[in-house]
């Protein structure tokens, strides 16, 4: 399977933090027979891929399976569904969107007062989460409760579309990383490698904390999607990174000060192999590296990310070329890291 088809399949699955089961099952179905794997108590997949060579150091490559979304917290007497965000969701992007609730994919929409009846100050401000609700067409609590339960997961309704050489979907953060790892497992590795598909990144790097302990790696490569703000509304110094400029390798973000040698190695490989690589021009965002690099006595860690516009929205946009760059760079780095 090519990596784009893989990404489309992965993005179509619903898996907010703590409810990654569907994503996990799919990934297991793809790696079965290709490597040894186990599922830890949190739901992380820890896969060991035997290579041609067995190095004296351990490498862990990691991506998270979960995505941002919502959780059902209350059902009103009128059958409207109240919810809270799971992970960082911008309240400005929620109103008017279609969502899918629970295992049965009950369709709902996020609504509120009609535009025509808003007071002037209400027109200026995003509706806060505690004032938003989902309408599934129910008229009463009893009716709604037949279809929806408290604690049900809520995901943005998805459409995976192509826009020129770009892709638009929900959940690209971080199914892009999962797709790259699946491709690496399929192609086979040169050195023995641990691949961890982890849970609960979006609510505080929880899955990776446990997985890094279990694997106890010497080196880690985190595969991610990271904020690209290369839109006209951002000045040049606030764009963080840009689409079509290649794999993003950061020196620092809000969770990690990255290993300098690995950072340099990634750029050297890019120059030698003609793989486009860029860095982040702002200290922004964070990812599982934040948990992994300080696991046990410390792990030398780097993060390779696909630049992604409108992260944490139903309309994440990435470039196909950048995804290929991350794939190529991850492949090379997973060999060269053992030469350090």
């Amino acid at each position, binding site marked *: 399977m090519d990596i784009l088809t893989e990404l489309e399949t992965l993005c179509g699955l619903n898996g907010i933090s703590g409810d990654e089961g569907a994503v996990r099952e799919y990934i297991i179905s793809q790696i079965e027979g290709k490597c040894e794997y186990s599922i830890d108590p949190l739901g992380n997949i820890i896969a060991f891929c035997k290579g041609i060579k067995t190095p004296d150091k351990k490498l862990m490559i990691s991506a998270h399976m979960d995505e941002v979304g919502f959780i059902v917290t209350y059902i009103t007497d009128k059958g409207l569904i109240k919810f809270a965000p799971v992970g960082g969701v911008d309240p400005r992007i929620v109103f008017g*969107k279609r969502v899918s609730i629970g295992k049965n994919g009950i369709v709902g929409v996020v609504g509120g007062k009609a535009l025509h009846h808003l007071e002037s100050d209400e027109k200026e401000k995003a509706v806060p989460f505690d004032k938003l609700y989902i*309408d599934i067409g129910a008229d009463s609590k009893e009716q709604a409760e037949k279809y929806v339960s408290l604690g049900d997961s809520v995901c943005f309704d998805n459409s995976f579309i192509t826009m020129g050489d770009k892709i638009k979907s929900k959940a690209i953060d971080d199914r892009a990383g999962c797709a790259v790892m699946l491709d690496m497992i399929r192609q086979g590795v040169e050195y023995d490698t641990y691949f961890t598909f982890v849970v609960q990144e979006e609510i505080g790097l929880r899955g990776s904390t446990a997985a890094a302990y279990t694997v106890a790696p010497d080196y880690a490569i985190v595969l991610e999607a990271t904020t690209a703000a290369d839109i*006209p509304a951002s000045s040049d110094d606030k764009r963080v990174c840009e689409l079509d400029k290649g794999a993003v390798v950061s020196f620092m973000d809000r969770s990690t000060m990255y290993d300098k040698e690995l950072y340099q190695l990634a750029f050297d490989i890019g120059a030698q192999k003609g793989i486009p690589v860029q860095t982040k021009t702002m200290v922004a965002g964070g990812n599982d590296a934040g948990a992994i690099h300080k696991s046990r006595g410390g792990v030398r860690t780097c993060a390779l990310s696909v630049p992604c516009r409108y992260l944490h929205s139903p309309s994440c946009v990435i470039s196909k070329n950048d995804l290929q760059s991350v794939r190529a760079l991850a492949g090379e780095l997973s060999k060269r890291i053992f030469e350090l």
Partner: protein
Amino acid sequence: METFDILCKLCPSFGVSGDEQEAAEAALKILAPYGEGTFDKKTGNAVFRRSGYDESKKTILLDAHIDEIGFVVTYITDDGFLKVAPVGGIDRRMLLASEVTVFGKQQVRGVITSTPPHLEDDNKKLPEVSDIYIDIGMTGEEARSIISLGDKACVVNSPVRLLGSRVSGKALDDRSGAAVLIKTVELLADKQLGVNVVLLLSSKEEIHGVGAMTGAFDISPDMAIAFDVSFAYTQGEDKEECGELSKGPMIGISPSLSRELSDALISCAKEKNIPYQLEIMNGRTGTNADMITVSKGGVRSVTVSIPEKYMHTPAEIVDIDDIDNTALLLAEFIGGLE
């Protein structure tokens, strides 16, 4: 045709005010077996005359607007992003991260851009339409080869069924009204009528009702009914300002409307046991009836509204039962006209 299937043909079709042809033709295609319909490039309206049109009979005009709110492209940046202005009343709450179709030389998909929360200091303030950009994933050169200034865009969201008989999607305002007209013509298919039935699928309602003005002039009806959506109560609304979903058509009463027609519709609903609600207004109605009543030497007109939640968002909700009951009321009413 099943009402949901009609909506699935009408709602996804493109019809931002001034560019209604695709949506109008989707409606005319369904109506084709029942009479003669034409799309009028002069007005942007689609006019459908039911079979058996007879100059000697009086004409009732049934209006539903076929246009929808959206955006018009005003500028293309060097890196391929589109600046837009609103066409009709755009709800700022629903802009960010919405998926859109841009109707250029070909239809192109895009998304409305937002700064990610990681970089946002104040994520409470909503952007103005003048602040947003549409990202179509193209370079400036590619974008300019397909998109021209003045091209229109609208949000993407095909109809989906919710619980019971409720439906959500974009452009239910006012393709629900168009669906009422189509259902009515279907119900009246083989009936001999005392009047000519002419449908006006009007353009540009969302920008001052221009289509209804010109359309009513050309048709010269003897009476008219304008079918549009109106506010259905939901949490946070004032009950006094709203109808209710699933409680039937909202028959309009207003100083600007023909009370005789309002009363006739109410009697018909009572007699035929069709659920209905009243929508009391105190002057202009905010619908095409405002234009039609003062067309030529004046036309006796009334409004009938389909209750709708979340108007002017991609999440609009109507109840199919309301559409069906509105069509039933209309068919009974017209069947009784002499």
